[in-house]
């Protein structure tokens, strides 16, 4: 007591400094966050080195499994098909002329003139290139799904999954740059869409921090002009796409071959009979369905209907349903969303029944891909009817997976129920579903109201009626117009009801994860504190035993 009385009370500054020192001590949520940020570069580097060691390019670490389970031979099959495509591509390169006036004709010549006797070598080479590329994309897609559904990215194989995804994306871009070279209508309009698409990166809303600054740098327009070699599709575009078409494969190949050189492994885990069968299948398709050429490109006429190549159909349909800015962000973001979802799968389970949310993400993606393509090919898609069904089913898939997952965890160990209680996940899905649907219907009602007001005013002027008379006249003459006939609604027309879709999305996407982050950090900090306390207690049992006694 005497000692305490002698010590002067620390001043406000000292106490404040002590408080902040306490915050950044290696304890508690803020302390862990602070030291986590400081250690992040070193930890990330270590993480990357570990994943780099385990990275799998062509399923080369599954050679034994591939002998019995064909799913694990997909990597080798894909590599073989890639080699076939490169080989036939080199043959085509000799005869193809990359110029807007001659490209179409040069392909016609390859298809019809290049023969040995009656055997059409040119048609075979082009068929091998085209259908080989299709097989490339099918196999790369199957491989991504195999890794996804078997949980193959777990145990430090995240980079293997990302490489598989990269292969698929490179394949799709090779397809896009490749089919402009044919210079037919499909090619021209697909390129037009693909080149206009980045310009929406300059249309960031100004409420996004830095949005106006990003817009002012014209990155989207610059990307478009770099792709096209100017302000329109022309000869420069064809040569550029020709260059990109090689570059994509060459860069990927150099990267892969360096790896093979350093590690010395077998590239293809399939036998020579499998290779021969794959080759014969592609050749058979090329013989029975010679690769189509379409009609020559005409920049002045867009045919109706116009379809992209089959692997872009689903995305093409998606562009019809959404605000273009949102659609651009979403399309560019799909691979990142997939990688984000991968890092959300934190538990070690790899069996089918034990990770239902992630299965449903995969199944959902597959269903939309097939369904959208089917609807658009058969011309039964309806851009006014479909969107709510799509939003609802997407939310529904995730909710089914979520509750299945919850059931599994409760059965396994009901003391750890919070492992699956992703309240923020459920909240996000619910907000998204409600927002999308409300926007769809209220957006339509808004349109009807505006039109109703205009039509009613025309009728009033033309027939000398009052507003109520005009409405009842319209109602009896054209019931299909779906007009609202209260004066309040009419006077409120022209003003948007509720918020726009992308605003709701922005709030949901930013606010809910931010809240989740704060709560998660707090709980994580508390858990680490408890673990450190337990370790400390184990290391110094005496100190731990005496500490409570001293307090008491």
């Amino acid at each position, binding site marked *: 007591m005497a000692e305490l009385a002698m010590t002067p009370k620390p001043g406000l500054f000292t106490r404040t400094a002590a408080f902040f020192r306490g915050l950044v001590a290696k304890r508690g949520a803020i302390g862990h966050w602070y030291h986590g940020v400081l250690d992040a570069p070193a930890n990330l580097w270590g993480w990357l080195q570990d994943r780099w060691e385990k990275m799998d390019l062509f399923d080369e670490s599954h050679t034994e499994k591939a002998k019995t389970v064909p799913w694990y031979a997909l990597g080798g099959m894909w590599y073989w098909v890639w080699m076939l495509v490169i080989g036939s591509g080199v043959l085509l390169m000799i005869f193809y002329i990359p110029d807007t006036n001659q490209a179409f004709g040069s392909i016609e010549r390859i298809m019809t003139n290049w023969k040995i006797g009656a055997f059409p070598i040119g048609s075979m080479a082009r068929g091998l290139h085209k259908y080989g590329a299709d097989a490339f994309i099918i196999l790369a897609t199957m491989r991504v799904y195999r890794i996804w559904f078997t949980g193959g990215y777990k145990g430090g194989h995240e980079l293997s999954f990302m490489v598989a995804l990269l292969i698929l994306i490179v394949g799709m871009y090779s397809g896009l740059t490749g089919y402009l070279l044919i210079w037919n209508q499909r090619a021209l309009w697909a390129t037009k869409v693909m080149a206009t*698409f980045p310009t929406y990166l300059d249309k960031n809303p100004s409420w996004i921090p830095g949005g106006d600054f990003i817009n002012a740098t014209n990155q989207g327009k610059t990307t478009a002009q770099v792709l096209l070699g100017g*302000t*329109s599709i022309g000869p420069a575009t064809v040569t550029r796409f020709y260059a990109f078409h090689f570059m994509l494969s060459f860069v990927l190949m150099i990267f892969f071959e360096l790896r093979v050189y350093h590690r010395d492994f077998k590239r293809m885990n399939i036998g020579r009979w499998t290779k021969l069968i794959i080759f014969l299948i592609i050749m058979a398709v090329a013989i029975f369905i010679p690769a189509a050429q379409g009609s020559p490109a005409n920049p002045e006429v*867009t045919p109706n209907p116009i379809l992209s190549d089959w692997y872009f159909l689903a995305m093409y349909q998606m562009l019809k349903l959404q605000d273009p800015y949102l659609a651009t962000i979403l399309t560019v973001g799909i691979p990142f969303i997939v990688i984000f979802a991968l890092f959300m799968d934190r538990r070690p389970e790899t069996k089918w029944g034990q990770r239902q949310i992630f299965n449903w993400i995969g199944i959902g993606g597959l269903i939309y891909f097939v369904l959208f393509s089917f609807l658009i090919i058969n011309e039964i898609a309806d851009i006014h009817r479909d969107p709510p069904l799509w939003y609802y089913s997407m939310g529904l898939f995730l909710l089914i997976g979520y509750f299945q997952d919850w059931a599994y965890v409760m059965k396994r160990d009901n003391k750890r129920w919070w492992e699956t209680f992703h309240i923020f996940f459920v909240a996000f899905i619910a907000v998204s579903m409600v927002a999308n649907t409300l926007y769809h219907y209220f957006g339509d009602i808004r349109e009807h109201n505006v039109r109703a007001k205009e039509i009613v005013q025309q009728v009033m002027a033309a027939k000398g009626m009052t507003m109520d008379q005009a409405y009842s006249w319209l109602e009896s003459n054209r019931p299909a117009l779906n007009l609202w006939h209260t004066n309040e609604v009419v006077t409120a027309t022209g003003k948007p009801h509720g918020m726009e879709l992308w605003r709701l999305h922005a709030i949901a996407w930013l606010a809910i994860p931010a809240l989740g982050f704060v709560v998660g950090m707090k709980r994580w900090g508390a858990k680490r504190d408890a673990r450190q306390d337990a370790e400390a207690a184990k290391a110094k049992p005496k100190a731990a035993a005496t500490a409570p006694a001293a307090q008491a």
Partner: protein
Amino acid sequence: MNENTRRTFLKAATTIPIIGGAVLAMHSILRYFKPTMVGGLDGLTAPPDMAPSPPQVAAEISDLQAPWACKDFIYVRNSVEYSSRKTQGAKIPGFVLRLPDEFVADKSDPKNFYLIVQRICPHLGCTFNFVPDHDALKGGYNYDAPQPFHPYFACPCHLSVYDPTHTQDIAGSVDGKAFDKLRGKVVSGPAPRPPRTMSFDIKDGKILITDTEGGGVG
């Protein structure tokens, strides 16, 4: 990293100039990626450098007497190209539409009777069509137009439909003249705005295009 600060410092001091030199070397290559840009580092972010395009005839007035008469034309917009070709012409397809009298508010100016738009869809750049038929619009473009029917502009790619009789609020300028409303309201589909405009004059019974709104891929 903290073990040997002197070595770290020297490494950084030699690395930075090397990276800088590499960036400068890359710039000379990257600059050429965008052939229509102005010189210097600004060029990577600047809009295309425009060359003057002479006024071009879009249509004869005598062909556009009937209401809803529509003519298509091509306007060539030049931009400077920093290569052996010197300039690059982007072909901009367009429509001249004769509006019926009941949709023209101010009849004193003869220019108000004509709607001139660029046919490049402001959504993703396809060339849109003039659709004078209700069933074609419903079947081909997924839009069930209200009665009484009048023609619409509609794009085959992503099914945007524009109503030439209505305006939509949008700010912009053509040929130095500001506008705050444009004809061609989006009534269906994903397009963010009405079609891009062109400024024009009427001389000797001909419609002359004098300038175009920027943006869009030709």
